[in-house]
């Protein structure tokens, strides 16, 4: 009896594990808000030892070859931040190229675990995708190991400027955003709107994109209104919503009436800002929908220009070796205002001047 029961126990456990592992695979493709058409989706199951790919619909047959792009990203395509910005960029390019008949997009989201992501990258490459994007600086080492095994495939990763050419790898593109530029502009607006004279910034990890944004924001605010106090903090995590909310509460308790932050965990901080009547500045993607009365403006990453150039390069036989940056000047960075929050004319004018100045080089967004 005992043996039987134990076996049943193990069996039920296996069922449980499989159910957990399969859960993301069963997700239907979410309808992207900006894009009513249904996209063709290939998904990779996270957490299984061997990554399996389930193709939702077979690629339609047509005379011209479909350009196939696959992307692996750390958070979800609706994170209102880093992952969503890239996914929306891909959708925009797909639309421009003539829909899914011309360009296929496959994606794996929620790949916080690097080994899972590395398996997915390799899997997409072996399936013959033309361009495989590893959307996270944590994936770099894995990518440098996978890329040489697939010399016909283009790879891209960011945020970084390292295309691994020094290691003799020629089929990797790299990209990053000059996040400090938008940070500087938003900091300028925040300083001019602040009544308390305190601004709070809560970042995830003091490195890369987040650090650039935080430092740019602080410098912009201090330049626009000398003497203003800009407090900053980091939670040490990209996903800890709870600690991010506590950080925002701490900033408000310290007197801040203007808040900003970066990473997908900021939803926690935006909620706090909304509850306590503070204003929020977003980055990476338009965060207005999270709190329509609270978000003043957002810096938006528009990756579509970079994606188009990578596709054109690949078609022309250049499989990698280029690094790209998003800036105001090349149109990769944009400031999106929220119509529901009134921004004083002087703040808006100062922001415009800052964008101009950063574009022509007369304003340096970092100290």
């Amino acid at each position, binding site marked *: 009896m005992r043996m039987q029961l134990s076996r049943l126990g193990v069996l039920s456990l296996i069922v449980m594990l499989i159910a957990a592992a399969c859960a993301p695979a069963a*997700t239907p493709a*979410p309808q992207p808000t900006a894009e009513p058409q249904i996209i063709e989706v290939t998904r990779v199951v996270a957490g299984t030892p061997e990554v399996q790919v389930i193709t939702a619909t077979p690629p339609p047959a047509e005379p011209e070859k479909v350009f196939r792009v696959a992307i692996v990203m750390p958070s979800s395509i609706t994170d209102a931040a880093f992952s969503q910005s890239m996914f929306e960029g891909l959708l925009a390019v797909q639309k421009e190229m003539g829909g899914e008949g011309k360009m296929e997009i496959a994606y794996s989201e929620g790949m916080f675990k690097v080994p899972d992501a590395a398996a997915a990258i390799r899997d997409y490459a072996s399936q013959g995708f033309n361009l495989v994007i590893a959307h996270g600086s944590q994936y770099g080492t894995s990518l440098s190991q996978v890329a040489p095994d697939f010399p016909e495939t283009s790879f891209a990763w960011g945020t970084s400027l390292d295309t691994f050419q020094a290691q003799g790898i020629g089929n990797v593109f790299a990209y990053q955003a000059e996040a400090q530029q938008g940070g500087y502009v938003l900091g300028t607006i925040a300083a001019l709107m602040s009544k308390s004279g305190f601004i709070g910034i809560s970042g995830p990890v003091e490195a890369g994109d987040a650090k650039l944004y935080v430092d740019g924001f602080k410098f912009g605010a201090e330049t626009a209104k000398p003497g203003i106090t800009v407090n900053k903090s980091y939670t040490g995590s990209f996903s800890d919503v709870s600690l991010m909310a*506590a950080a925002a509460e701490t900033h408000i308790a310290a007197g801040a009436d203007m808040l900003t932050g970066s990473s997908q965990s900021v939803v926690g901080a935006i909620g706090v800002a909304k509850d306590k009547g503070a204003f929020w500045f977003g980055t990476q993607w338009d965060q207005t929908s999270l709190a329509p009365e609270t978000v003043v403006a957002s810096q938006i990453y528009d990756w579509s220009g970079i994606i188009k150039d990578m596709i054109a390069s690949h078609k022309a036989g250049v499989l990698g070796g280029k690094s790209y940056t998003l800036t105001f000047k090349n149109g990769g960075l944009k400031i999106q205002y929220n119509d529901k929050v009134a921004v004083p004319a002087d703040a808006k004018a100062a922001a415009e001047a800052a964008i101009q100045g950063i574009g022509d080089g007369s304003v340096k967004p970092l100290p």
Partner: protein
Amino acid sequence: MSELFTLPVLLGMAYSGVRLATPYLYAAIGEMFAQRSGVYNLGVEGIMLMGAYAAFFVAMSSGNLWLGLLAAAVVGLLMGLLMAVVSVTFQAEQGISGIGLYLFGLGLSSLLFKTTMGGAQSITGFQAIKIPLLGDIPYLGEVFFDHNLLVYGAFLLVPLAAWVLNRTTLGLKIRAVGQNPQAADTLGVSVAGIRYFTVGLGGVMAGIAGASLSIGLINLFQENMTSGLGFIAIALVYFGSWRPWGILAGALLFSFVNALQLWIQVIGIELPSDVAVMLPYILTIVALAFAVQRAQQPAALSKPFERGES
């Protein structure tokens, strides 16, 4: 450093500490009951996620926060019972089945979130209620008596749990089953029954812990929003030597130091942010090293019970 010890900063720190301790208290006290009866459930994190999702979704669709809380409790109970079926009836290895439950909760809550909501949304959660008279006490009032109901509930749970565990027949049975299930069995106590009850109760508490985040403190749901909170709650059970008051001390220590590190950063004390973020963990480990170890670990913890075997 002196700016850290001003009254507004200390009060702000205490206030945040009390709020941050709330989910730990629910989850850890629930887990304590399960462990005192001999079952440890590593799936707390997964149950919290499901509880957080259920509470948020039901509260958002119905507009009733209490229904949301009820949904979290029911979902927590079901997941707790699932754990009990696997670990008590089928006698599977508890650590592994707990991890299975965690992955199940993580995957299912993410799936449901995507299919029903798509992206992050926020609601108005339980509002702070200032307790008459007590809330007017200078300083202490704003720190301890101006919170939402879920925060009060978490702190009231501590004496209640201590009373149930130490002063009632039920508590005696739970302790007996965890200490010496054979003896309890010969005295007519249903070992499986008690374990089903405690693991189910632990599930309810973990579900409410999740709800305390999604409709009490943060008021939104995001995939994997607990990010390790449930595992820290399990560590707090050990830290507190399986006693409610010990768990309270551990939860408060961890939360206050977390609040402290945020304040250290916010007021600009020169300390690398990475070090600040580590502080709560370092101090918890130090405190654990000096605490009396394993003094009260239930003797039958993690051991399945089979009548007639010893």
